[in-house]
């Protein structure tokens, strides 16, 4: 029993060692997002609190903590409180399988990709529950929009993942990264990378696909009735999800923790730094797109998902499979 408790203690220590950096980096990434947004619009962005305004998010979080939590009288209280908790938990739980280097990973499971995909597809529940429990029309409409949007884009993300898996022959995330030693999959599967990136924008409700919270039509979508810390949890969960999608993109297409080239000055830089750099690169693209591109109309969004991305990624899947089969490059598998 004592031994078991010791193991448990070690695991809790490891989990804290993973979670605290993620929460801090979520705070930093919110600052980066606002900063990039400001620079694109020729503003300065947040630059007052701390050096370069780095502590702006901490100040915001403090403000949210001390604000009153208002629960609408007609809301379903249990579900209302559960919704932000679920969003936050699911966004953090997925990080358990993200490898920062060959052995710096909390749990190196066989079905890592499926786990990531499952957790990201559960993310829709926080939004639906929040929207329904608020018992008000704008949150409900926002939640329904968001559910439809996230379910549709998951389909194309799934097929893109199958594309990558065909080339690797394993569902393990470390295997996927090691398989990209010679060439990152962004080169042979470039169209899939573009579609993955756009689907990730839609999956995380980022502009230009932030229809669930289109303020001109729906006030703030599913978050309208939320206040104080509960709103902050939605918000942190959203950014943790965005970081997760960036990590997924860098694992599937940009070679994860591998250096750009296996030459002397580059391969001494430790693997986690490469992973972080790639996540940051993808996040910068996310932030730039938020600043540059105007919002989509809802029917255009659905058309893009079902009529363009789905057939295109299916065709590309057939092409990849036939190419691998014809040139006898199908992975032999390690069994």
């Amino acid at each position, binding site marked *: 029993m004592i031994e*078991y408790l010791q193991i448990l203690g070690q695991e809790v220590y490891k989990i804290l060692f993973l979670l605290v950096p993620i929460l801090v980096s979520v705070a930093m990434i919110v600052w980066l997002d606002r900063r990039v947004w400001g620079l694109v619009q020729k503003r300065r962005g947040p630059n007052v609190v701390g050096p370069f305004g780095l502590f702006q998010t901490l100040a915001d979080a403090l403000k949210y903590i001390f604000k009153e939590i208002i629960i609408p009288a007609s809301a*379903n209280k249990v*579900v209302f409180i559960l919704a932000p908790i679920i969003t936050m938990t699911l966004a953090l739980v997925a990080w358990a399988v993200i490898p920062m280097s060959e052995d710096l990973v909390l749990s190196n*499971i*066989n*079905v890592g990709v*499926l*786990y990531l*995909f*499952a957790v990201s*597809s*559960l993310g*829709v*529940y926080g939004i*639906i*529950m929040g929207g*329904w429990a608020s018992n008000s029309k704008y949150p*409900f409409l926002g939640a*329904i929009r968001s*559910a439809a949007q996230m*379910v549709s884009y*998951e389909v194309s993300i*799934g097929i893109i993942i199958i594309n990558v898996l065909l080339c690797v022959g394993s*569902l393990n995330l470390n295997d996927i990264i090691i398989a990209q030693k010679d060439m990152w999959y962004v080169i042979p599967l470039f169209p899939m990378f573009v579609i993955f990136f756009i689907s990730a924008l839609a999956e995380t409700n980022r502009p230009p696909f932030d229809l669930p919270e289109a303020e001109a039509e729906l006030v703030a979508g599913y978050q309208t009735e939320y206040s104080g810390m509960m709103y902050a949890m939605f918000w942190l969960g959203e950014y943790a999800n965005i970081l997760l999608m960036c990590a997924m993109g860098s694992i599937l297409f940009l070679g994860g923790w591998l250096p750009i080239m296996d030459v002397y000055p580059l391969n001494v830089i430790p693997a986690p730094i490469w992973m972080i750099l790639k996540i940051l690169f993808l996040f910068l693209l996310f932030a730039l797109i938020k600043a540059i591109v105007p919002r989509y109309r809802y029917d255009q969004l659905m058309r893009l998902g079902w009529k363009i991305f789905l057939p295109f990624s299916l065709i590309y899947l057939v092409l990849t499979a036939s190419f691998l089969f014809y040139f006898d490059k199908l992975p032999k*598998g390690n*069994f």
Partner: protein
Amino acid sequence: MIVHSIFFYFFSIIAIFSSLMVITSRSTINSVFFLILDFISVGCLFIMVGAEFLGMILLIVYVGAVAVLFLFVVMMLNVAEQKQSWFIGKKSTHIPTGLIVSVLILLELLVVVGGWKYKENVMSSSTLFLSNISNTHQLGLVMYTDYILYFQLAGIVLLLAMIGAILLTFRERVGVKKQSYLNQISRTPLTAVELKDIKSNEGVKIDD
């Protein structure tokens, strides 16, 4: 091993409790939430016995897609909370149907478990050999080789069901303007603007 059984009982108690709550809960939304909890705990049980692929697929397909649609439908229907439990109500038509279905399921379970208890090799597949390869690979080895026909047939049945559902709800709406992206993009100033001489007191008809 004791930890293993603690986890097993933890997940199975949650699974049984939530499946009871699915059928006894008064509000339909709560039923769907308990259904989701049930799926998740059954998925965890799958992972515990080492069938991690099945567990994850259960999470992705049932929790990530099917239950979302359930929730969607239940929310849109806005079914009011039932004041009385369904088996107390006067004329309940659910009981005979429910009984038939549950008796059938019980019989099926009896047949399956009985056959498997009677002779070990009745139910086991001859092609599936247990070794140290992961169960995802094992599934892949038999799915597209020995069982390709059943797999494809199941896919076709699902496709037909989908087409049928779309066909049932499809209606041609008249008088609706559709946006054609090709026409929009291929417009030039020459084709977009039309100059007309308008005669006095006659006007001009636009938009037809």
